[in-house]
């Protein structure tokens, strides 16, 4: 077979394989974006829950969440600026801890 023809066949074979891998990675990255959206929604839900709890405990005189988690230790003042990071029970994990 002439070299030129052989080169075409060889190039086609290698391109097909790398295209397959590329298509696969594209699909996977699209799915990971879906996971990212889920995590964003989870963060929003957790924030809503946290705000509900903080609002509820604030009306009861404060410290409800602190007593729950800290075994009766005085709880820090509640402010809206607190995040789920302050509450281990609402720790949703980090995306990088599960997916590279």
């Amino acid at each position, binding site marked *: *077979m002439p*070299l030129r*023809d*052989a*080169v075409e*066949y*060889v190039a*086609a*074979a*290698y391109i*097909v*394989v790398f295209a*397959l*891998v590329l298509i*696969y990675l594209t699909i*996977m990255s699209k*799915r*990971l974006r*879906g*996971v990212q959206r*889920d*995590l964003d*929604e*989870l963060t929003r*839900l*957790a924030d809503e*829950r946290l705000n509900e709890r903080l609002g509820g405990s604030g009306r009861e005189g404060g410290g409800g969440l602190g007593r729950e988690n800290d075994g009766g230790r005085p709880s820090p003042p509640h402010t809206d600026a607190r995040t789920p990071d302050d509450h281990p029970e609402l720790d*949703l*994990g980090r*995306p*990088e*801890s*599960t*997916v*590279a």
Partner: protein
Amino acid sequence: MSSSSRLRHLSVASALALTGALALVFFYAPTEADQGFLQKIFYIHVPLAIVCLCGFVAGGLLAIQHLRTGDSRWDLRSYVAIHMSLIFGVGVLITGSIWAKGSWGHWWVWDSPTLVSFLIIFLLYATYQPLRFSIEDPERQSRYASVFAIAAGAFVPMNFVAVRLSTAYVHPRVLGDTSNLPGPMALTFLISLGAFALLFLTLCMYETAAKRARAKARALKRKLSADGASAAPMRRRSAEPALGSATAANAGGRG
């Protein structure tokens, strides 16, 4: 080492190994006397086929582990191994057809036992996903899929031996007594095989991590959802393995 850093290291190793294999194929391995430059397809086609068939067998072994332990994580690993092998199988069929066209003048040769037997195995595994999708109950789905994976996994080596024993058609032999690859070609082939095995492993781990992350996110969403109805364990019909919520929530960081 955490799952993510292991995955990162594997990805880098795969990329380096593939680059090295490509360099060896085109700059080190000598051109074959009979087929000439066309023989370079060999270094991509045969490793893909070997890794693909090993992946099918691995899927069966992982399915045995799933049936033994009842842990859905083994089912997920088996599913991912078979899924990835199917993708590699597509690559094998396409590169094989291109090689056949260049070498024999035909895209497909029906009287070659090696080609036809590979096609049979591929088509057999192509029914794996529809089988899973046809069963709604996740528990039954995972058990039936495991039984299928074990039976089909046992069929792969049997098929391989049967083709070896057949003498109707002489297909190039790479491994075994009949191998006549010179040193540089054999070295290039082995490095290419290692590179594709690494790629397979990396993509399997990548997909497993992605599926676990998704299952974990969904389980947490159900838990966090204030709505009582959505808090119930609802699952859309899917061919993908269902990870138990507890398992999913705990398994996120594990590879």
